[in-house]
């Protein structure tokens, strides 16, 4: 397992950080989340075209850079750190999924990947929703049902819809999309209804679910690290009783516990990203069938990383408010934005009991 950035990933991270410093300042983030779509289309266009981030996960023959989850995780982490509102994560997962399914589902890949690559189309995922599929042949499949919590769904042109174990690509224009106000204003959702909407097969739902969880875990770990950094800075500068509050053991010990939690979340997210990246690479060379026996199983690691990193993020964001005292309770301070992102992410990932059951089953701990 590799836990450090490759040279290319490190360069990419520097470029994304430079972008974030210019285009994702706290004021810009707040302005974006208050806008009609919940994100700033100009920032999206810049990151899609100037930085070429939208094309990252799209195979070269569809106009992309042909990178994998290891590279996609870099902007996901850096945007997560500052809570930049953007459909990047959803759209990148859609691109990774379609790229992985391109061989068996060339129609969906050919129709959507070029648009995802140039950023003219964004994707959203409708997973775990109450949706069923009809139709017999690939040409006349339809989906019917409702997705109540479709993250980044309002502006998406492509919807990847789970129906049972299958995944379908549906044009948003073939569905009824209702934008929603969200508790976490940095990440909007939509309610989407499908009434016998035309659906192109896009492979199995499992890779979409796994990649979504892995990248959310990476985002949670990075955002948690940011919360810790902001909080530690405050503990060093805020003075009460004539000294920095960070000199009080009651607070130092809590900060230390958060540092331990953040270290563990970062490592776990990294392990999951690495596993997703090597699995993807193995898929792309399936003929050779040389997947390492040492590689961990994504069916275990994706729910495990999602469980651990989302609750760590929530723990750190909650402590961020408490350790800032009154200022941490204000709208003006950024702590509430992280707290809301953390809880929303955790709720969208589903109850811990369900993730545990999945982990226990996949790891062979619990009876099937």
């Amino acid at each position: 397992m590799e836990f450090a950035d490759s040279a290319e990933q490190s360069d990419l991270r520097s470029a994304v950080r430079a972008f974030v410093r210019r285009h994702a300042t706290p004021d810009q983030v707040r302005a974006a989340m208050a806008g009609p779509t919940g994100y700033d289309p100009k920032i999206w266009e810049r990151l899609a075209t100037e930085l070429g981030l939208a094309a990252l996960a799209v195979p070269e023959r569809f106009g992309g850079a042909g990178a994998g989850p290891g590279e996609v995780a870099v902007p996901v982490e850096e945007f997560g750190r500052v809570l930049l509102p953007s459909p990047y994560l959803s759209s990148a997962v859609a691109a990774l999924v379609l790229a992985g399914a391109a061989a068996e589902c060339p129609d969906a890949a050919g129709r959507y990947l070029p648009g995802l690559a140039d950023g003219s189309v964004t994707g959203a995922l409708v997973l775990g929703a109450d949706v069923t599929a009809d139709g017999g042949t690939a040409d006349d499949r339809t989906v019917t049902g409702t997705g109540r919590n479709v993250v980044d769904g309002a502006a998406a042109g492509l919807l990847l819809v789970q129906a049972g174990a299958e995944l379908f690509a549906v044009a948003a224009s073939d569905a009824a999309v209702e934008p929603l106000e969200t508790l976490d204003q940095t990440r909007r959702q939509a309610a989407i209804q499908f009434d016998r909407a035309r659906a192109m097969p896009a492979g199995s739902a499992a890779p979409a679910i796994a990649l979504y969880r892995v990248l959310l875990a990476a985002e949670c770990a990075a955002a948690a690290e940011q919360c810790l950094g902001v909080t530690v800075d405050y503990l060093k500068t805020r003075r009460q009783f004539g000294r920095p509050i960070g000199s009080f053991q009651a607070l130092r010990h809590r900060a230390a516990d958060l540092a331990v939690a953040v270290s563990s979340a970062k490592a776990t997210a990294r392990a999951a990203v690495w596993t997703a990246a090597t699995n993807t690479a193995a898929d792309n060379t399936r003929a050779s069938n040389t997947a390492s026996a040492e590689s961990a199983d994504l069916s275990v690691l994706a729910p495990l990383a999602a469980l651990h990193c989302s609750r760590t993020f929530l723990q750190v964001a909650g402590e961020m408010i408490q350790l800032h005292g009154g200022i941490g309770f204000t709208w003006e301070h950024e702590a509430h934005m992280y707290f809301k992102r953390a809880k929303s992410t955790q709720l969208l990932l589903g109850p811990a009991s369900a993730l545990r059951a999945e982990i226990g089953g996949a790891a062979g701990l619990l009876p099937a």
Partner: protein
Amino acid sequence: MPDADAFRADVRGWLSANLTGEFAPLVGSGGPGREHEFVQERMAWERRLGADSWIGLAWPESDGGRGLPWRHQVIFHEEYARAGAPARVGHIGEQLLGPTLLMFGTAEQRARFLPGILAGTQLWCQGYSEPGAGSDLAAVSTRARLDGDQWHLDGQKVWTSLAQFADWCFVLARTDPAAERHHGLSYLLVPMRQPGIEIRPIVQLTGTSEFNEVFFDDARAAAADIVGAPGDGWRVAMGTLAVERGVSTFGQQMGFQREFEAVLATARANGAIDDPDLSARIVEAWVGLQVMRYTAMATLGRPAADSPGTADVARTVANVNKLLWAPWHQRLGELAVDVAGAAATIAGPGYDLDHGQRLFLYTRADTIYGGSNEIQRNIVAERGLGLPRDPR
């Protein structure tokens, strides 16, 4: 340099060829709560390890070690634990005194002491803690006075693991009675078998004794057997801790895996796995084990930013990892007896405890020894996060 996979095969092959015959009963023996088991046999096992050069893997070849890189050391610890090889009786010499001599010892001291550790023939114990100096180690009050060619020691050490079997003890003693705190301490090498030393076992809450009290009543050490200069003992003792990179963590985690599997087997056998609360805790214990493994892999063995005064969590990885594993291990102990249920309330004849009972009781020590978790948090806060010290 052997290739990593070849080295792993080599370790595995050696263990399966040697952990047989007279050593077969040692599988799974020793370690926390069980250090009293098979001591003579484990001393013989230590010599067998030494004879085939499995001690001092990390030490430089010029000092008799094998100069192997981090990855190989991890492999050795993993395979050692996977095979259930017995807890080492020589680890204090290999992991603590040896590295100290490599950093601070004279050429004469290295030539004199390292070969015995490498051969597994010379066992060491650590004389740091005292009744009045636990978390506050700088409060050491054992005194040593130089008279001619000998140090004379008076005082008491406590929580001294394996003192009853050790040939030597490295002792942190106050050699300058006028100095305070961490000034005026010296790091002395003291032979254990002498009239001035008395060892009394401490009976722990497990009913067994791993730890001892060691009393010095005009005990003697040769004038030359001091590491570093007189008064330099604090720097020497702390220097060893600073280079400890926690390679043994990987072996320890393999041991945790075995303990977890024992709990899981009990839960399957007695139906506890069907209880929703217990099954949730079983999965959480397993999740915690994976998280600790990834954290150790991501952090240990990587150099920290080495600018003094700069806060960097990477400088405190051993502390971070201990803050993860010690509470996890305690929860596993609690889970072990909860899975067993009321059966865990019955002890064997002579207060012979089973694995789960011992785990439940002994893991209370995990958050205390080697620096209590409160001390670990102080270190992470100060050295890792750069938070100001609290007034002491």
